[in-house]
């Protein structure tokens, strides 16, 4: 188990390393105009060169990369160059992370609870009313672009339920809609997969044996079906994190939540390299951590996942 975990951890770190390297290089491919912001027209070529040189952008790319890693290992994320010049990136993020964290964790918890409950409900009433309603919901979420129902929620539901249209930190009611919006996508996928795995398990032979043994349907559901269906669900944890991140980027600006989501779009547009790199580092760490946790959970619950490489017992 430990060996497997360490191996997976090593793989995760390598993946993270590759992702940030790629992002770092991509940022260097963008046109240089971005670095000067509004004042671009007023600067002459010599001034521009000086600025770029001071930013370290005229050094060979491997020197820049080396410097970036060196700083990163020391815990130094660099300073913002355009967004808020010369302010350390860490400081900018410190103010924003809590909001994104609360909303992110809230949305993941909410979608996990709602999605799995809905999935169980659908599996139990397969082909009947609740299953149809649930399927309708899943199809809707997957077919309609997220922005449409986000806007719909903000414009109409706020009106109907008399909820505030924008986020205000000390008004707990204003947290509801952003949270719900963020969790809609992953709720749908949790429900769909939970239903699917439950139905799969219910059709397996061992359920028949369990019934022949004299176990009640309720016991079979709890002790056999639910647990077995839950194991493959672990692999959807990272996906749900990604969905929530993607949702947060849009939703945070929609409800003017001062979180990280809006910041990423801003930073990319204005070519604030250190800020983008830091944000990408955070987001990709989160998704890779999700993958890692998902795999570890699977290995804990499913004894068939071989932890070491000594061939199967088949």
């Amino acid at each position, binding site marked *: 188990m430990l060996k497997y975990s360490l191996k997976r951890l090593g793989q995760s770190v390598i993946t993270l390393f590759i992702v940030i390297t790629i992002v770092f290089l991509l940022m260097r491919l963008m046109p240089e105009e971005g670095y000067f912001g509004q004042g671009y027209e007023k600067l002459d070529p010599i001034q521009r060169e000086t600025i770029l040189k001071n930013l370290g952008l005229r050094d060979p790319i491997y020197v820049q990369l080396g410097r970036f890693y060196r700083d990163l290992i020391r815990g130094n994320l660099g300073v913002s160059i355009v967004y808020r010049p010369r302010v350390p990136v860490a400081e900018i993020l410190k103010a924003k992370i809590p909001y994104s964290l609360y909303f992110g964790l809230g949305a993941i918890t909410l979608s996990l609870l709602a999605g799995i409950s809905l999935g169980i409900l659908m599996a139990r009433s397969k082909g009947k009313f609740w299953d149809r309603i649930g399927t309708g919901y899943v199809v809707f979420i997957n077919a309609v672009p997220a922005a449409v129902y986000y806007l719909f929620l903000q414009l109409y539901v706020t009106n109907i339920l008399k909820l505030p249209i924008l986020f205000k930190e000390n008004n707990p009611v204003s947290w509801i809609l952003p949270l719900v919006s963020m969790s809609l996508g992953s709720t749908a996928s949790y429900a769909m997969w939970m239903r699917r795995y439950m139905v799969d398990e219910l059709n397996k*032979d*061992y359920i028949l*044996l369990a019934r022949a043994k004299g176990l009640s*349907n309720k016991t079979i559901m709890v002790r056999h079906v639910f647990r077995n269906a839950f194991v493959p669900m672990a692999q959807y944890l990272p996906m749900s994190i990604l969905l929530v991140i993607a949702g947060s980027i849009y939703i945070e600006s929609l409800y003017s939540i001062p979180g990280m989501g809006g910041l990423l779009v801003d930073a990319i547009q204005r070519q604030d390299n250190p800020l983008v790199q830091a944000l990408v580092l955070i987001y990709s760490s989160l998704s890779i951590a999700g993958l890692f946790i998902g795999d570890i959970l699977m290995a804990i619950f499913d004894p068939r996942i071989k932890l070491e490489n000594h061939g199967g017992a088949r």
Partner: protein
Amino acid sequence: MHSISREMEEKYINQHPILSAKDVVIKFNLRGHTLTAIREASLDLYEGESLAIVGESGSGKSVFVKSFMGLLDKNGWVDSGTINYKGYDLGKFKTEKEWLRIRGKEIAMVFQDPMTALNPLKTIGKQILEAVELHQGLRGQEAKNTVLEILRDVGISNPMVRYNQYPHEFSGGMRQRVVIAISIACSPRILICDEPTTALDVTIQAQIIQLLKNLQKKYKLTIIYITHDLGVVAKVADRIGVMYAGDIVEIGTSEEVFYNPQHPYTWALLSSLPQLGIKGEPLYSIKGTPPNLFNEIRGDAFAPRNPRALKIDFELRPPYFSVSPTHRAKTWLLDPRAPKVEPPEAIKKLREQWGSECCGK
């Protein structure tokens, strides 16, 4: 009459059946059509015996016995007839609560494919323990000890280690032993073995059959074997029921059915055994296909495939005719008014063998 069969007769003649199915009709609803899978089949099961039900795929063997445990698929139901067991009519059982009195505790089942019959995410110890706790009312260490004893009984060595292992750590034959252990752990009176050896290779088959025989003695089980493997039948069965198109067309002691078959379907079935083939001639096979169960069947269901069918076979369904107190068959050939029909060569040879054995004694 033959001496061995007389012994058999005495064994059965004064006994009351522990389970008695009478005129059972089972229907299924399939895409809006109704299919009659079991057509007024009757069966008596006696304490301590091994009864084999043979028949080709789709003849309704599994469906028939599954109805004794309420394990029919959701779209199937017992339409009429009675299944008497301990004063209950199982045919009338509807709710889960009623069935929980029977399942496991009274009747348990061993399934065909041991590779999929076990929950892959639970240790086999836990899976057997579940049955022990539920039906023997034991808890804690006592229950665990019982599990270990059962594991030993089904021939699993090193039970202490095996207890904590998962199904994927077992081979096919070993898994079937575990499935058998689970059904034994319920301490049932009747054990239904639904093709217990079909999914296993031949050497393992013999072991499993021997195991079931041993367990039958030790736990005083009444066993119903469902199979289409006549080799298995010959090894284990006291009595044989031959099933065709949802009905038991012939039933008798193992010897009677093997050496003195009466129903043309039994003739055809035995004639297709390679052991009875005549050297140099192509092996016999039954022409045609079983009837479509969506349609109502008139007369004898086997008549269209039977080259020796009488005219009445197409008109009227034959009742049971008794050959001996333990042997009866549903065929008009046994009616006193029926013309004399010669059975196939292979069957004649079987009867001769039976006769000579008899005279040799």
